[in-house]
């Protein structure tokens, strides 16, 4: 739900239901990274109610578009984290399999296999 003004859509407060600090803080951080944003913050009117108000003020672009872009950027970032995590898991499993083979085949040699990054 957006609370703003019909004439000036560069500043608005977005009221999200069933949300809490989890995405509010992350979206607020991503909004701050956007150079079009002059002010952004979030508040939780009452801790017993699952409602978050996010205030966005921009340099002229519609606040709703800026918020959507921030959500999009956040999603891209997490998608990147997932890809990187997947690759890191595969890399880790592969290097562990190699290590296990090396330990089996080398009895007494004291070579340490390097942790390649």
């Amino acid at each position, binding site marked *: 739900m957006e609370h703003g003004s*019909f004439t000036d859509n560069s500043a608005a407060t977005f009221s999200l239901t069933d949300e809490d600090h*989890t*995405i509010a803080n992350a979206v607020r*951080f991503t909004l701050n990274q956007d150079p079009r944003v002059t002010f952004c913050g979030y508040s939780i009117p009452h801790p017993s109610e699952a409602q978050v108000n996010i205030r966005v003020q921009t340099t002229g672009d519609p606040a709703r578009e800026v918020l959507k872009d921030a959500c999009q950027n956040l*999603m891209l970032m997490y998608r990147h984290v997932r890809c990187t995590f997947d690759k890191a898991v595969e890399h880790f499993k592969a290097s*562990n399999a190699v290590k296990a083979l090396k330990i089996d085949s080398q009895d007494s040699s004291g070579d340490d296999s390097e942790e390649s990054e």
Partner: protein
Amino acid sequence: MEGASYQRFPRVKIRELKDEYAKFELHDTDASMANALRRVMIAEVPTIAIDLVEIEVNSSVLNDEFIAHRLGLIPLTSQRAMSMRFSRDCDACDGDGQCEFCSVEFHLRAKCISDQTLDVTSKDLYSSDHTVVPVDFTDSAGYESSEQRGIIIVKLRRGQELRLRAIARKGIGKDHAKWSPAATVTFMYEPEIHINEDMMDTLTLEEKQSFVDSSPTRVFDIDPNTQQVVVVDPEAYTYDDEVLKKAEAMGKPGLVEIYAKEDSFIFTIESTGAVKAFQLVLNAIEILKQKLDAVRLSEDTVEADDQFGELGAHMRGG
């Protein structure tokens, strides 16, 4: 979209990875993102847990609701959970939420007939779906396998019987902690420790030893060859300032400088076994994306006038 935002893309490096334990580093991101990931892993990744219990016979020493509560807390393997529907959203059943698409049925039958105490454990729960079973905690090494018999639900004496039917459903940790797939999820800032070598050289060996011993965790040690204080495990540092206070007490402030790198985090994840540790992270990211999609695509109803509406009243302090 004019004006690309200044966001950076994070990097991940895995330290340790076991079935139910993972330790990895996350670089180039902010604390709010790491915290969002942590909160979702604890509270919003769905799993399956027993939610409805129908007891036919219970002559044990524990009462019905006690046993039902314990059954709910048993972790069940929940690989199916992400693709399953919530019972309340299921349209295949008549609305009572007990169809095969949205729930899994279990039954338990135990009667003690010998003089020895019978332990009714999670291994006695029989599932209607072989992919959703109580988590098996037996060590794969297989030593003393007679000791690992599952989680004890209740103990029965001769003549006592327990017979029940249980329905397990999908849920999230926010509703009840039995649905939380994470045992603990923590992250810490990566510390950066600098030792002022010139100042350190002015200390005697005893002073160096007492400095090393002043830290509750083993962060520093004295190299036997060079008699120098070296950092042996920077991540054991728990951001207590004991070593800094000790340095000041010795009259040498600035002996060691410790910073927390603001964009580098070390995550430690322990799962209950319902979901594997690395799968937990992937599911958490998936859930975060779903939440962001919901925000992004919601049809906003614009309340244009700040004069009316609850939000206006709240902002006016009413």
